């Protein structure tokens, strides 16, 4: 039994779905952020798998750009979370950020 590319793709799909469900389920903004990281990693696995299946190096190069975007997103996102926590004094859920609610 050999591990083909579709195994990796299925694994990435399951990982992405777990991340998406977590994003919808959890209300702690930090954990929601970690779920976004899970989804980005699933996409990275898909990129590397297609890179191997199509014998093309650019799939691995794209992973670096995904990494840069993830790092920038974490920096800005955590700054937003810190700013929210300062104003809200310790409440950690996304439900408390409802200033724009109609």
């Amino acid at each position: 039994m050999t591990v083909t590319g579709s195994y990796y793709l299925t694994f990435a799909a399951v990982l992405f779905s777990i991340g998406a469900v977590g994003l919808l389920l959890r209300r702690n903004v930090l954990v929601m952020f970690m779920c976004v990281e899970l989804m980005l990693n699933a996409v990275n696995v898909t990129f590397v798998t297609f890179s191997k299946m199509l014998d093309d190096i650019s799939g691995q190069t794209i992973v670096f750009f995904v990494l840069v975007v993830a790092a920038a997103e974490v920096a800005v996102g955590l700054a937003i979370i810190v700013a929210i926590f300062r104003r809200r004094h310790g409440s950690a859920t996304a439900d408390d950020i409802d200033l724009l609610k109609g």
Partner: protein
Amino acid sequence: METFLFFVAAGLALAGALGVVLNRNPVHSALSLVLTLLTIAVLFLLQGAELVAAVQVIVYASAIVVLFLFVIMLLGVDKEESLGEPFHFQRPAAVALGVIALAEIVFLAGHEWATGAHATRGGLNAGTGGNVERVARSLFTDFVWAFEITAVLLVLAVVGAVVLARRSHLSPDDIENGEPGDSEAEVVHP
């Protein structure tokens, strides 16, 4: 051997992902995230992407998770979350949507197949040198414009983080009453 490693690594990664979602304590979620990221690095190694695996360990499993833990500890939110539902049916709806998305992806992956041209940008084993050299050649020739743009993106992210995390002189009461404080704080008035 590869089969064994794949199933162990994939199982651990999925277990870590479930741990991120299901743990009530954010610190435990972050530690589960480390497990997932490290086992994904193993999967990269299995596919011959050595440089990506190394960067995954250095950047993701180290730097980003440390940043997460740092913010958790800084804010002191390592207490458990009450998992009450704000809306009815939120949890079943979330799980149902996740299952639908998974079924859709697996259906598409099983029925349609990747039909791209092979090795348009240089093959995995073409030319001389190892994986690192090939990725570097691709990065600094075909993708050099995108590579330069990432520098701008990172600078913007750093400036944005500094502006957002700067301590404002406004108290939350001022904001809710719509009375801005001094002119310096007015910059960050939402």
